């Protein structure tokens, strides 16, 4: 069902925009049948809208899956994929890209933010000492590293006020830079990370227990935690470097799927991945069309949905149980 949902909203996503494309022509173009789109419309579909929709799907899938895995690993229903300093590290990397390179930032931005995000998480691991012996220690060092990176980022922004606006718009998330090259490299990291997470999803049940219980049931909890967090972080860092910081997807989608399926979060990771993809394609459609031809940052849309959702969760505590 989630797959059908993704295909449906994907079709909506490539169809709507300042210029409307018809569904039948889109399908014909994509399958290579006669009667498809020609000229500018064809370029609009294949080189602008399609990569953008696919990138939104990849990023949404990455954030939702990582969020669900983090919630299991850290035994915290409100854990989100940006916990371990990925967001702040990537933000610092992006700010550095804007402040040091000045001109064409988009070539370097993904690399800077990816490296920044990964470095921040590695620092969190390093500070927390014993690798994954105690997930809460890792969580706390993630928060410390995040604050530190944000402090440097704020300082840099103060010194380079011209970078303020582009950094700010990046922080709110944007898919405007989507092209086939970005789709290409991000899909490699994101799809392989999601595949790893789905392949270990059954064992993740064990991480919801204490380490001794998990061990007695045949799991090496330390090793499993490392695999889970590394894969989830890689997916998140890739998503962030491709599209900025898009909030709430990692929390809203796993809880929604859980509320609907009534299953333990990590047992429906594949559904969560597809639902996350569909959610972000839909949010991006909103970002592009609500104030057309102007564009809203996609983070505004996801937060707009996400904040009321938190109130809903608070009122309906069963969902976080």
């Amino acid at each position: 069902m989630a797959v059908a949902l993704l295909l449906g909203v994907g079709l909506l996503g490539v169809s709507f925009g300042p210029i409307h494309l018809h569904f039948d022509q889109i399908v014909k173009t994509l399958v290579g049948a006669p009667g498809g789109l020609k000229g500018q419309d064809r370029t609009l579909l294949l080189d602008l809208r399609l990569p953008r929709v696919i990138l939104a799907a990849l990023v949404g899938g990455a954030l939702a899956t990582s969020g669900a895995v983090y919630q299991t690993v850290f035994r915290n229903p409100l854990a989100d994929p940006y916990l371990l300093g990925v967001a702040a590290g990537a933000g610092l990397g992006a700010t550095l890209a804007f402040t040091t390179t000045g001109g064409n930032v988009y070539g370097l931005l993904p690399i800077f933010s990816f490296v920044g995000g990964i470095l921040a998480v590695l620092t969190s691991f390093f500070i927390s000492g014993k690798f994954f012996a105690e997930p809460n220690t890792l969580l706390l060092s993630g928060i410390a590293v995040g604050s530190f990176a944000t402090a440097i980022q704020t300082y840099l922004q103060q010194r380079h006020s011209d970078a303020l606006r582009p950094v700010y718009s990046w922080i709110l998330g944007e898919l405007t830079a989507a092209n086939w090259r970005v789709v290409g490299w991000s899909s490699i990291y994101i799809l392989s990370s999601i595949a790893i997470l789905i392949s270990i999803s059954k064992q993740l049940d064990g991480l919801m227990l204490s380490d001794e219980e998990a061990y007695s049931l045949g799991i090496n909890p330390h090793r499993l935690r490392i695999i889970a967090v590394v894969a989830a972080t890689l997916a998140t860092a890739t998503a962030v470097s491709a599209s900025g910081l898009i909030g709430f997807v990692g929390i809203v989608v796993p809880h929604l799927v859980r509320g609907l399926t009534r299953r333990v979060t990590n047992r429906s990771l594949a559904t969560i991945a597809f639902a996350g993809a569909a959610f972000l394609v839909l949010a991006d459609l909103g970002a592009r069309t609500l104030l057309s031809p102007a564009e809203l940052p996609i983070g505004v849309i996801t937060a707009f949905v996400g904040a009321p959702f938190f109130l809903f969760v608070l009122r309906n505590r069963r969902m976080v149980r």
Partner: protein
Amino acid sequence: MIEIQDLTVRAGAREILRDISVSIPRGKWTCLVGPNGAGKTTLLKALLGMNAYSGTIKDNGVEVFKDSKRNVAFVPQSPQIPSGMSVAEYVMLGRSKRDGWGKESTKSRALVSEILRQTQLFGMQSQLVIQLSGGEMQRALIARALAQEPELILLDEPTSALDLHHQIAVLNNIEMLKDRGVTIISTMHDITLAAMYAENIVVMRDGRVSLSGPVSEVIHSPELKDAFDNRISVYTLDSGRPVIVAAKDSSSEREIPQKEV
């Protein structure tokens, strides 16, 4: 036999267990007793083989941390309660090592319903574990351990925070395991209950074992009193069953005729 030789377990620079050497018989119920901080839980966890230790712990002649096939159930004192998981799913986790994670064989399903019945959880199988009361949660933990069909079960204070009625229910559930030849090792703060159910007692103090042996030998020993700074008194009921209570003074053992209720 489980043979422990010169076992030392450290947490940082601190030695929690120091040069412990003791043998624990298989197929029997052994209770680790001693005051808080004596190292009971640490010894129990060491027997699981997950954490680092120096010395040797050999179960059936094999060093415990090297034996990945060993089927040991662990019942913690305060379990992590998974969110969103039903009682049936929780008990089914006990089959993971046999069936593979996420797989449920027909045999396992039948076994789990049988166990849910034995542990009086049958009507609650689709309830969320997080909604269970303390007594029900403890039964769910025991049920999961039963589902594991273990050769050895380690229980950390299985009766703490339970009222007397539930204590007996849980201990009877554990006793069912013993009847199937499973080795049981538990910590228990209530020594009277320990003496009632266990066959063997290991007395611990300050990270060492001060005495171990059959209940009848250990329960009247000065080492047991010493472990508790002589602040316990041991009475013997008419039936010959010992009762251990806290004592204000260091009074010695007394025989007071009493009828068991």
